Structures are given as structure tokens and as C-alpha cells.
């Protein structure tokens, strides 16, 4: 599904290498988690994969379903099935949540040569998906993320994911700023999307999210590299012992 080989990335504006050769493969149907201390490059990895400006790829590759995504525009990556749930979802005053999602969904469908959804079809779909995530009609009518609480913003991210049905979902610290109940809601939204055709890359600081979204593989990232890969028990080990041992071993 997602194959990252020797990915090296520096900041465009300054001579600072962030990713120093990341190797990572997420198979369809699997949930991979990346943990690591602040500044290890986790968020940069997610932004680079999604196509945000400001980064320069200096080496390596990233492919999705065999297609080189690093050369694609962000919207092309999305149409290919890549989705990034933002750590800080952006507020967009004046753009209705519903309009935004319908434009996004139909743009992707159009890019893939699929029929666009009519307004009633879309409405039916979003109401059904919204209900599962406890997102009411009022939230859908409001401008994108404007005035949303932290929990509402994250639920809105998961709603978008559920509507767009991507092949590869990257969740960047989706648990940050959430209380336990909100986290459970978000986790159940993610779990509902788990299936054989879909891969997940869950970036998190803490083990607690992984109690609710059970990963198949856990990676530890430090200083721009994956320094350790293991099963779910690796996350528990980090929770108990911290990163120090792993980092020193690397």
C-alpha cells in the first residue's frame, strides 16, 4: 500500500535536515503506529506525504499503490486515496462544512472518472456518517472548523475520512487535546473504517490511543529515522520505560 524508502527531507527555507532516511511499509488492512519524542520528525513525515509546501525531498521515495506520490499535487494524492487527519484542523471562515465536503468528494470522484454525487445522494450519505460520529446537522452547516471545540474538530476529521473513504489514512496526533470520551468516539470512528483494503498510519505520543485503536505494528521514530519496530507490546514498553533506552540503543 504505502511504501517509503530511504526518505530524506529538509526544510526548504533553512538548511535543516528533518528526515534522514525513513523506511516504512504499511500493508493494506494493517494499522501501523509511529511513536517518538517531540521533534523526531513524525509530523514532518505526515506533511511530506500529504504534499505540504515548505519541504524539500533530498532523497528516497514514497509510493502509494505503486504510484510515486512525491511528484503529485496534494489534490492528486487525495484522489489516489491518501488522507491526512490533521493534528490542528484548519478553521476556514465563510466556507460551509457541507459545501467543502461535497466539493472535496466530488472533486476526487471526478479525478478518478467516477460519477459525482447529486445533492440528495450526498446529503443522505453525510447524515448517516455524521450520526455515527455524533455530528449533528448544525455542525455540518457551520463554516469549516470555525468555533469547533477540540473534540469537534477531530470528529470532523474522522467524518471527512469516512466520507472520502481513502485507501491510506494517516492520523497525526489525532488524540491530542481530547478527553477520554472524545478519544473513544474518534477511535471507534477509525475502527469502523478498518478493513482489508485500507491501511492506517497512526502518529501518537502516547500509548493510550493505541488502547482503542489496536495497531499491528509499532515503530519508534527518533532524529529523522525509524529506530525500532515491533508489535503492540513495543508501545507498552515505551509507556512504562520512556524513550531513553530505545534512543540510546539507536
Amino acid at each position: 500500500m504505502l511504501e517509503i524508502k530511504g526518505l530524506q527531507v529538509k526544510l526548504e527555507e533553512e538548511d535543516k535536515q528533518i528526515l534522514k532516511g525513513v523506511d516504512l511499509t504499511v500493508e493494506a488492512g494493517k494499522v501501523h503506529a509511529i511513536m517518538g519524542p517531540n521533534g523526531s520528525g513524525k509530523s514532518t513525515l505526515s506533511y511530506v506525504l500529504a504534499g505540504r509546501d515548505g519541504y524539500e525531498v533530498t532523497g528516497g521515495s514514497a509510493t502509494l499503490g505503486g504510484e510515486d506520490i512525491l511528484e503529485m499535487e496534494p489534490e492528486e494524492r487525495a484522489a489516489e486515496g491518501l488522507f491526512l487527519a490533521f493534528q490542528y484542523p484548519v478553521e476556514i471562515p465563510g466556507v460551509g462544512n457541507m459545501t467543502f465536503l461535497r466539493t472535496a468528494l466530488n472533486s476526487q470522484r471526478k479525478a478518478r472518472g467516477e460519477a459525482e454525487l447529486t445533492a440528495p445522494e450526498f446529503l443522505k450519505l453525510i447524515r448517516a456518517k455524521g450520526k455515527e460520529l455524533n455530528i449533528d446537522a448544525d455542525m455540518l452547516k457551520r463554516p469549516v472548523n470555525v468555533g469547533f471545540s477540540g473534540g469537534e474538530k477531530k470528529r470532523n476529521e474522522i467524518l471527512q475520512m469516512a466520507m472520502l473513504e481513502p485507501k491510506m489514512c494517516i492520523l497525526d496526533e489525532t488524540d491530542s487535546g481530547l478527553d477520554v470520551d472524545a478519544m473513544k468516539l474518534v477511535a471507534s470512528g477509525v475502527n469502523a473504517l478498518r478493513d482489508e483494503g485500507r491501511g492506517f498510519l497512526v502518529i501518537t505520543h502516547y500509548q493510550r490511543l493505541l488502547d482503542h485503536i489496536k495497531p499491528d505494528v509499532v515503530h519508534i521514530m527518533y532524529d529523522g529515522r525509524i529506530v525500532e519496530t515491533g508489535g503492540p507490546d513495543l508501545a507498552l514498553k515505551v509507556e512504562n520505560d520512556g524513550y531513553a533506552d530505545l534512543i540510546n540503543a539507536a
Partner: protein
Amino acid sequence: MKRHQTLDLKRTGAEKLLAALPMPGVEDRTENRAEAGWAREARALARARMLVAGAPIKRDEYWKYTDPSALTAPLDMVGEGEAPAEAPFADIACARFVNGAFRADLTTLPDGISMIPLSEALYQDLGIARTFYGVLEAAGQEKVARPLAALNTACATDGMVLQATGTATLHLRQDHVGEGASLLHHLIRVESGAELTLIETGTTANTVMEIELADGAILHHLRVQIGERIPAATHIFARLGAEAAFKTFTLTADGQMTRNEVVMEFAGDHAAGHIAGAVMGQAKSHIDNTIFVTHDAVECEIRQVFKQVLADRATGVFQGKIFVKEGAQKTDGYQKSQAVLLTDGAEFLVKPELEIYADDVACSHGSTTGSLDERALFYLRSRGVPQAAAEAMLVAAFVDEAIEEIADATLADLMREEVARWMATR
């Protein structure tokens, strides 16, 4: 007084301006013996106002950001080859002017208004024109000289003398379909209890509107200026009676040179004036909105909301002055002018001014210039929205605050469509 100091010989541009006037369709009419005596007098006074002021030059503070030479040069009037279709307003009663002359054969008037063309009124002893022609324009010169408006009064070719007594919607369409020039001068009086919606389209060139709102009168004015190839200098002079409401919105898209001045005076208490606009400029467009509002009554509300979207080498200008006289207590003033620059070469020049002599007023103004929010753009694109569509969404959202000033939802939606069309063809 500054006006008198400007009589020196360096400022003979006005003479040149008048001398240059005999161009197709426009002539100096101040000596027109056939017009009624009051009309000849009003024309002569206007001519004198212009000569005193002189033609505007770049050195004038009021023209700091807009080079008036394109507006004072003898007009090389080549209008639209073909009159543009006005499908959205097709079912609205329409007063038509073609090449600066009223066309009765193309005009239908709604109930609730009476109208005669200025070209007839000037030859008659007609009350409304006689007492009104050039009066608000002259008053509007008190603080700042507006020679192009005086020029219009002196030389106007035609216009509407309109009186609204009921509820009516009228489309004022001003076309140019070849060579020729026009200076249209409209007199609009909305009576107590009347509500007029006036939609203005076509080529505005040098247009003056003198608008008087009686106590409790309501006027909605919507102006659409799209892709004008003729430099446009427009003036609205409005005087609001007690509890009157005047809402004006202008969409200006491209065009080489546009200067829209609104001069508004609150003469009666509890009146409301809303002046809004959306500016969409690309290539080398220069679009200037200049506003001067005088408060001479208590508890009046003024709102100014302008949104500019500028690309390429386009320039947007906003000059907005709120002048609150002593005694104009409880004035509620709000002014917002914001620009989004889509490319590096575009420019927004803004000059907000508050001059307040009353001690119990609330006036605020704010102005911002920036590019589209990069984070929002990336967010939209990361969800699959193509860049152009994402930009269009953000521009539509940005402009909408001004469009929301339009009371009529259908007209507001038409303006949204124009903004979307402009983005789509960029």
C-alpha cells in the same frame, strides 16, 4: 479656503478639460440658449466650480493613489462592440440609455415611480429638476473639490429625473455600442414611505447621481461594473432624511481605470447608510473607491464594507472618510476594507480617515492586506479540492462579507455568481 487658493494659473487644467470637450457626443452646454434659465444657471455655476477647482492632478492629496490623467484626458470613447446581454435582469423594468441618450423605445417603467429624461427636464420649468439639479453635487464640493462631478453637471448629456413614491425595482442600463461619449446625470428622489431598488449596469464613464431620500425613504442601489474598457469616474451624492436608509453595493471587475466616489450626508436623525463593494482586479486594472460621509444628525449608522481581490499588476484603492460634526451624537460608524492579493505584483492602497467633533460616538475602522491563507489552501487541497477551486472557495468566502450587505437574496446570489465567474476565467 483651499478652493480659492487653487485659482492660480498653474491650475488651468480645467480650461483644457473644457476645451477638449467637443468630442463626439459631449459638448460644453453651459451656453446652451435653448435650455431653461435655471438650467443654464446651474450649468454655469457648475462650470465655475470646475474652473475654481481645476482639473484633478496627481499632486492633489485626494488623488494620491489614483492618477487622474486617464480620467481627464479627452476621451477616446470606443465602447463595447456589442451591448452585453443582461439576462439576470431581463425581467426587471428597465430604463435604457445608449451612447449617452435616453431611449424611450427601449424603456419600460414600473409602477411606483415617475421619470422623465434630463434631456427634456432641462428645457422645462420642472420642480424636481429645477430645485435639485447640481445642488447636492455643489454641497459635496464643500470639503473636497470634485471637479469631474462639476464637469458632469455642466455638460451632462442626459439622465433620469426620477421620483419614487411607491415600492419599485428599476434596472438602469447605460450602454455604449460604438464611438461617442456620455456624461449621464441622474436625479433620484425617494419619497417618504417609498422603497426603490435600483440596479445599475453598463458603462458608467462619467456618471453622477444626486440622490435625496425623504424621511423614512429606502433606496437599495446595486451597481455592476464589469470589464469596462472606458475609464470610469462616478459620483454618488446622497442626502438622507430622518430614518431613511440607503444601501449601495458595487461590484467592480477589471476595467482599466475606475474611480467611484460616494458622498453621503446624514441630514436627519436615525438614518442608516451602508456602502459596500467587491473589487475584482487583474491585469493592469486600477479600481478606486473613495467615500466621504458627513454626519450632521444624531443616532445615524454608517457601515462601509469593501473587499478587494487583486491579481497581476492590479491596484485597488480605498479612501474612506467619516466626518462627524459637533452635535452628531450617537453616531455609529463602522468601516472595513480588506484586500487579498493573489499575486505578488498586485497592490492595495488604503486611507481610512475619521474626523470627529462629537463626544459620544462609536466609530471603528479596520483594514487588512494579505494573501490567501496558505494553511487553508493546503487543507482544502489535501481533501482533493483542486488548487483553482480551493482558491475560488476562499475568495468567495472572503468577498461574501461585502455581498451580505445586499438585502435582496436573489441579487446577492447573482453577485456571488459573478465573483465565481471571475475566478473561473482568471
